């Protein structure tokens, strides 16, 4: 079946602009995760959605970052007033249920470049 998809594949923006990154999880997967991969910090957890429960936003680096998940499926990560340090690859993953030990399946990521 189809895997996790993300769009856009690449995004170049100017400092101060807002960006939206989209993630389509695997059909039927109730858990969705966002991670950030940057040269200096490696892979960092950002946010976790499980079904209709309130998301765990503990990994979001600042209040410029927000995410939503509509209808328990598609998720959008929004970064407001982008800064150069936001440049990174943003990875989305999904898993079948909320069980801790479910394998997370990743999308191809969105490479964000802030000029």
């Amino acid at each position: 079946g189809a895997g996790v998809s993300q769009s856009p594949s690449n995004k170049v923006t100017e400092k101060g602009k807002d960006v939206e990154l989209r993630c389509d999880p695997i059909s039927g997967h109730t858990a969705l995760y966002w991670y950030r991969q940057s040269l200096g910090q490696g892979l960092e957890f950002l946010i976790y959605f499980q079904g209709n429960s309130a998301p765990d936003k503990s990994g979001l680096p600042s209040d410029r970052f927000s995410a939503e998940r509509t209808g328990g499926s598609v998720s959008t990560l929004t970064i407001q007033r982008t800064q150069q340090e936001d440049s990174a690859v943003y990875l989305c993953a999904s898993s079948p249920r909320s069980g801790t030990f479910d394998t997370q399946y990743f999308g191809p990521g969105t490479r964000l470049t802030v000029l």
Partner: protein
Amino acid sequence: AQTVTQSQPEMSVQEAETVTLSCTYDTSENNYYLFWYKQPPSRQMILVIRQEAYKQQNATENRFSVNFQKAAKSFSLKISDSQLGDTAMYFCAFISNSGYALNFGKGTSLLVTP
């Protein structure tokens, strides 16, 4: 807090040879899972292998196997009969019973040469 350490930033191996990538982790948890993910230049993170901490038997997936030493908190990946397509970044990851976010190591860049 759990930490994952990959001490080899870069490694190289010749095609058909065997290579071992190292990973150590630190946790006070008793029940957890460990993973190796592969990330080729396409950026897609692909699961290579996973290991349940309560299982003593080392996991194996075709040419990929792990050496899981729970007491030593070590989780190395052995790639046998290396192929050019194995060239990628390899990440070791940990997830505990009390969380759901993967904790990743910094990665090892593996180059397979002809």
